[in-house]
């Protein structure tokens, strides 16, 4: 009965007219972001964070979460019509989606991607609703050692599961942890690394850092592109509703995509990108006609597009119940929640039931909005795609400047944003991943807090992290992740040598 009572509370919050409007704006902006290549959801979320300061807490969170899953919907449109993924999570959709468009089947490709996204997104919300409270209840047993170990596991997974060099990801995370220590020490009240300035005493604010790392750096990276023109495939988009045959070929990929997406969404560092790729690989392996993949197989669109949306529900589980973000967007959502005085974690359901269940209920409504919105709006998205990217760049710069300034009306924050814009650009150029950095910057205080409090309570005995069972399991899991990663690398290296005939 309590469960239904909670749902009732959630819909009571989500169905308030103001929250419905925020949800609608969130999913609409999210879709637009997803449609525009080069403007990822972390960028836009970073840019919109200052606006949420002016909105009531529940509405702000409903809107920001809406942007997150709305972007997954929009990403497929460009993949199918332009062969350029709007979001990294839609890269794999290009393979078959664009081929379908070339064969005059853009309509069914867009249609099945919208329906798959709706099904995956909605079912993953049910998963979130069932697992989230159980996990939060379990986490009530957590003390400082457990929180340290959990943050440690999440960091290890972010480092080892993101693409690119693990060493550079590790360096990037370490830099993020260091930036997270700037400001007043919460125990002694002593300022750390504030360079003698008052502005840095409050610590490095998330908004200017995130806007710089994602927004400004995005502009700089895009300035490098010699050609920013996009060739939109000219085709009549008609017959958006998939045929019976299309449904028959898609229903199992959609079902599998939902499960794969939700489970991978739970893992830090894996998320929607890995979900969409895994779904594609699974569908190709299970298909009776694997040769059709890459040539316009509808299963190659349905599975990944479902998986990337299902991953958003999965990613909300550790965020809401443990306070652990699993990717850049959920890290920014964590920041948005903290700004509004909401501390995600085991006590969220107890202290803010309306917010917790309201956000979840809004995800049902948002998914419905997206389905209703997207099919008729595809024509408009195509028109927006024709806006030259060079026109958008100055507008993004303007948004970065105003966003960073309006967060606290302090020109110093604009300077921080500009500095981190250059830092973000250099990080991209040198292969230092931005995601572990922002993740570590946000999770760092939790980790340090847990570490220091655990050592204080154990009088400096480091075995406290192993004598507490949950902590020991989490630390053990971290080492398993490290071991598997090293083993896989060693195996691929050995394979490389064998292929070259060295061994």
């Amino acid at each position: 009965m309590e469960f239904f009572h909670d749902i009732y509370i959630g819909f009571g919050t989500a169905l308030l007219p103001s929250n419905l409007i925020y949800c609608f704006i969130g999913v609409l902006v999210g879709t637009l972001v997803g449609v525009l290549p080069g403007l990822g959801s972390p960028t836009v979320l970073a840019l919109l964070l200052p606006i949420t300061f002016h909105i009531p807490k529940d509405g702000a969170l409903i809107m920001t979460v809406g942007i997150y899953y709305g972007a997954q919907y929009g990403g497929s449109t460009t993949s199918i019509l332009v062969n350029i993924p709007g979001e990294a999570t839609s890269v794999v959709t290009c393979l078959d989606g664009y081929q379908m468009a070339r064969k005059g089947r853009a309509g069914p490709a867009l249609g099945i991607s919208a329906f798959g996204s709706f099904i995956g997104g909605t079912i993953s919300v049910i998963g979130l609703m069932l697992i989230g409270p159980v996990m939060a209840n379990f986490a009530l047993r957590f003390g400082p050692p457990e929180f340290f170990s959990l943050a440690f596991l999440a960091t290890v997974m972010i480092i080892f599961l993101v693409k690119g060099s693990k060493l550079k990801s590790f360096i990037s995370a370490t830099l993020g942890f260091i930036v997270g220590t700037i400001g007043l020490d919460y125990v002694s009240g002593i300022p750390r690394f504030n360079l003698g300035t008052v502005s840095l005493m409050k610590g490095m604010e998330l908004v200017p850092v995130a806007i710089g790392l994602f927004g400004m750096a995005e502009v700089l990276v895009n300035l490098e592109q010699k050609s920013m023109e996009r060739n939109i495939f000219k085709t009549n988009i008609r017959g958006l509703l998939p045929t019976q045959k299309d449904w028959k070929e898609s229903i199992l990929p959609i079902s599998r995509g939902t499960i794969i997406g939700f489970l991978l969404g739970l893992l830090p560092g894996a998320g929607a990108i890995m979900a969409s790729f895994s779904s594609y690989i699974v569908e190709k392996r299970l298909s009776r006609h694997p040769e059709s993949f890459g040539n316009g197989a509808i299963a190659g669109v349905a599975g990944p597009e479902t998986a990337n949306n299902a991953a958003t529900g999965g990613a909300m589980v550790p965020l809401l119940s443990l306070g652990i973000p699993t990717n850049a967007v959920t890290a920014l959502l964590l920041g948005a929640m903290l700004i509004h005085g909401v501390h995600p974690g085991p006590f969220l359901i107890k202290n803010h039931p309306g917010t917790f269940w309201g956000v979840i209920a809004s995800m049902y409504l948002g998914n419905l909005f997206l389905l209703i919105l997207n099919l008729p709006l595809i024509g408009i998205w195509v028109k927006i795609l024709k806006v030259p990217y060079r026109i958008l760049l100055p507008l993004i710069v303007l948004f970065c400047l105003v966003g960073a300034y309006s967060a606290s009306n302090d020109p110093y924050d604009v300077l921080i944003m500009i500095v981190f814009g250059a830092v973000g650009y250099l990080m991209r150029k040198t292969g230092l991943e931005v995601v572990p950095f922002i993740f570590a910057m946000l999770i760092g205080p939790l980790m340090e807090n847990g570490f220091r409090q655990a050592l204080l309570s154990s009088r400096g005995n480091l075995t406290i992290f192993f004598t507490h069972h949950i902590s020991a399991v989490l630390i053990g899991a971290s080492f398993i992740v490290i071991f598997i990663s090293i083993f896989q690398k060693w195996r691929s290296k050995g394979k490389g040598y064998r292929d070259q005939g060295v061994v």
Partner: protein
Amino acid sequence: MSEKDNITRITGFVTALLGIGILWEGRHLTRGILSHPGPGFFPTLLAILLIVLSLFLIIPKWKNEEEREAFPPWPAFYKQLIPIYAALLAFIGLLDFVGFILLTFLLMFFLFVKVSYLKWYTAMSAAFVSTGITYLVFGMILKSSFPKGPLGF
């Protein structure tokens, strides 16, 4: 040694220097002992970790194939980058003197000409519209207080 190896090595040097800088800047912070870790404890651990990790980037022998990934070319767009960054820094420096509206209009005009390659009259119109909408949304609807110049706006 290829350009990307060089840049990886430079990255290692820079991050190692940052680690040394953190140790230097945090030298006054009490590190404490394991049973009573002070405010300098965690940052010191992190700085040492950063220096050690950076060594793996600096010493080529320790670098494996993974770090020798394809390196994106360095930009030939410094002719755009430097003026844009100079304009942004000027924006911060002049904000309190010139005022938000006029300065934003000038910056947007500059960006539309420099980045979007618009003709001056189109750039001026675009700058006017974008500045106006921004002020309307942030200044009037969201009530952010922007600095005013000598002309009162």
